[in-house]
């Protein structure tokens, strides 16, 4: 309570009043909350449909108070296309991890973006398959040790990481492609703003929007939460620079 | 009434279209009809054929082995279908392109220089309709006027300018086999009904 008794902090209406299953220190909780805040702020909870991926956030539909579907692994953008094309008045977002979006679901992502589908993709990049126990992901950094790259990712044998924003922003159908993080409060504020713009882009029918969140995985990285945030800041962001990769001119005029 | 017709030629010779004219007319005349094309790579210049069945009864099998009537528009089609025509059936041969003759004595064979006749009418691509006319000139399984009505009713708007030329091509085929008037060569109508 502030001095005059005004309520300054509460659970967003779009966020369910349940305990999540996420590990301590994981950024999913922060991103969920930010999405819920933005849904509340834009007043769209009753016309939003979310699509959960396969991965750690497979149960995301338990955590939002809006309609939700659970997609097959990687297929969320195709499913979102089906929903949005039949109900353009709905606000449709997918919530996907790096294995889901940048490996098994690359085709669905790329083509939804190329078609300029009016959907919003929230992409959580923590460089590892979390739910299955820490295997190499398409975004695992060179040299990074995972259970399926036990000697560190050798780019000669295991290839290079996929930089999603750089890739997708080449497509003419995209309107708003940005990379943010949540490792410190200033970045969290920027992320919140980006999520809001992404939804606004969809509501203004400007095209495909994607917000990548450079994220962490203390459990599978074998770090404390604090160490994992330092790894995000020093190593992850070095490979995945934060910034705006495509912002169509019309987006800049959005209020 | 039960006729099983095969029309066969190179892709682009209009075998499928000639078959559709039969099928539409058969339907408009109140018969049961089926039309099956060969499909796939044939459309890109190989051989193309269609099977048309016109019947007074429900059509079970739309595929046949022995046609009662067959139009062959090129040599490979002649080779393939000439032996298969049902005894007592009719074989119409595009003699501009097919230089061989049928040895069979149990079918009726007519040789029609369809490319030449069509070229004389101004468009060699109408050889298919000339052959259709020749076929109906020998066996009027559907009224020739019915085929003309089909051209008027079913040709899409962008192809309506072909209606009158096609009617003339149809008539030319009928006339050729009925009056045995050749173009640039003597008539080669041979009847060999066994």
């Amino acid at each position, binding site marked *: 309570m502030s001095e005059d008794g005004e309520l300054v902090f509460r659970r967003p209406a779009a966020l369910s009043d349940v305990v999540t299953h996420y590990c301590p220190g994981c950024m999913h909780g922060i991103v969920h909350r930010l999405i819920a805040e933005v849904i509340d702020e834009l007043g769209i909870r009753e016309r939003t449909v979310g699509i959960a991926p396969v991965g750690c956030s497979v149960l995301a539909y338990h955590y939002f108070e809006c*309609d939700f579907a659970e997609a097959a692994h990687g297929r969320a953008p195709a499913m979102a296309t089906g929903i949005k094309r039949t109900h353009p008045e709905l606000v449709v977002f997918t919530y996907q991890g790096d294995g889901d979006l940048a490996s098994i679901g690359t085709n669905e992502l790329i083509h939804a973006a190329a078609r300029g589908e009016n959907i919003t993709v929230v992409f959580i990049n923590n460089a590892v398959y979390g739910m299955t126990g820490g295997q190499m992901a398409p975004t695992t950094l060179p040299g990074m040790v995972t259970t399926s790259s036990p000697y560190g990712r050798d780019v000669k044998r295991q290839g290079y990481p996929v930089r999603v924003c750089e890739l997708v922003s080449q497509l003419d159908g995209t309107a708003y492609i940005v990379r943010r993080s949540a490792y410190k409060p200033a970045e969290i504020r920027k992320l919140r703003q980006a999520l809001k713009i992404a939804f606004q882009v969809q509501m203004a029918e400007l095209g495909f929007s994607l917000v990548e969140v450079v994220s962490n995985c203390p459990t599978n990285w074998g770090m404390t939460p604090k160490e994992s945030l330092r790894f995000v800041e020093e190593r992850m962001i070095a490979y995945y620079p934060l910034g705006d990769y495509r912002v169509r001119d019309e987006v800049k005029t959005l209020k | 009434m039960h006729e099983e017709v095969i029309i066969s030629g190179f892709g682009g010779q209009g075998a499928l279209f000639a078959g559709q004219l039969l099928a539409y007319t058969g339907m408009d005349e109140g018969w049961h009809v089926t039309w099956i094309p060969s499909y796939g790579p044939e459309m890109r210049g190989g051989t193309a054929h269609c099977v048309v069945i016109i019947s007074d009864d429900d059509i079970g099998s739309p595929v046949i082995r022995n046609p009662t009537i067959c139009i062959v528009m090129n040599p490979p089609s002649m080779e393939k279908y000439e032996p298969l025509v049902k005894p007592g059936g009719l074989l119409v041969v595009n003699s501009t392109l097919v230089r061989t003759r049928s040895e069979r004595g149990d079918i009726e064979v007519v040789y029609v220089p369809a490319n030449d006749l069509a070229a004389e009418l101004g468009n060699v691509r109408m050889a298919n309709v000339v052959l259709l006319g020749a076929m109906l000139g020998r066996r009027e399984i559907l009224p020739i006027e019915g085929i003309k009505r089909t051209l008027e009713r079913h040709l899409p708007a962008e192809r309506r300018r072909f209606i009158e030329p096609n009617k003339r091509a149809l008539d030319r085929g009928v006339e050729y086999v009925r009056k045995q008037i050749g173009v640039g060569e003597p008539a080669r109508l041979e009847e060999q009904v066994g």
Partner: protein
Amino acid sequence: MVGTRLSGWKGYRTMKILMKGNEAIAEAAIRAGCEAYFGYPITPQTEVLEYMARRMTELGRAFVQAESEVGAINMVYGAACTGARAMTTTSSPGYSLMQEGISYMAMSFVPCVIVNIMRGGPGLGNIQPSQGDYFQMTKGGGHGDYHLLSLAPSTVQETVDLIIEAFDLADKYRQPVTVIADGLIGQIMEPVEFPDLKEPQRPERPWALTGAKGRKKNVITSLFLDAHELERENLKLQAIIAQIKANEVRYAEYWLDGAEIVVIAYGTAGRIAQTAVKRAREQGIAVGLFRPISVFPFPYDRLREIAETAQQLLVVEMSAGQMLEDVRLATCNRVPISFYGRMGGVVPLPEEILDKIKGLAGTGS
């Protein structure tokens, strides 16, 4: 001319049109109120996609040429989650790719219509007509315990009628419903009649994802981490399948009175066999035809009855003998069963089947 003219067409509704099977499938779906179509080009079904591209757009309904059959089925899944009548069509290799999405839809109780215009396989095979996907269509196809209601037409008119019915059945059972046809039915032109154009209707679908306005949120998922919970959901699904088995058995019978030999064939093979059986009858052979129209549920009970009076059965398929297994199950091998199958896109001719019938009747050469 000889012969009798048709006095009137069965079920004459508007006006008969000569139409290719694939185009008739598209138009039938439109008339049934299909609001959303997603597909990918594959021979021999591509005309459905092309027709839908034109007509759905004209009507202001949803159409997307998907990036793959995987994309297409998941777009159908999404559209169907909102309660829209949604459809995709494909051919064998594409149907294989769709299995994942179909399994998800079955377990999350989402209706849709899927058409498989079968072609020769396995592998890339060819583009000629085949019935090699019977197992995949009737025994599940994807992972997990499910069967989809699967209807097998043999003419273009029957295809139209079954497509329209398939949408109603999908809604009734909240399950994907499949129509199983082949390249011949896709490519053949026959006269057809259609019912009047239906405006898309959205019956009450309280489960649909339409925005949680004035109600609790809806969730559509096939994920049930608790084993007992997943078993309960499976039991719900099995109860639906039991209903389908009880209510939706369909078949056609021809000349079964006094038939000592009964030919069993579905779809294209069924109509070809019809000609062979008719000719055999004309030659005095006591033969009839049994044509399953629902291949799931398979008409086990009726076939069991037939096996009690028939002396032999002849199964004809454009496959190595897939429906044959269901015939064996139905009749418990009480009567001798012969099989005639063609593969690789070879379509059997009536003469081949007739020879086989004559052989069984002891009148063959």
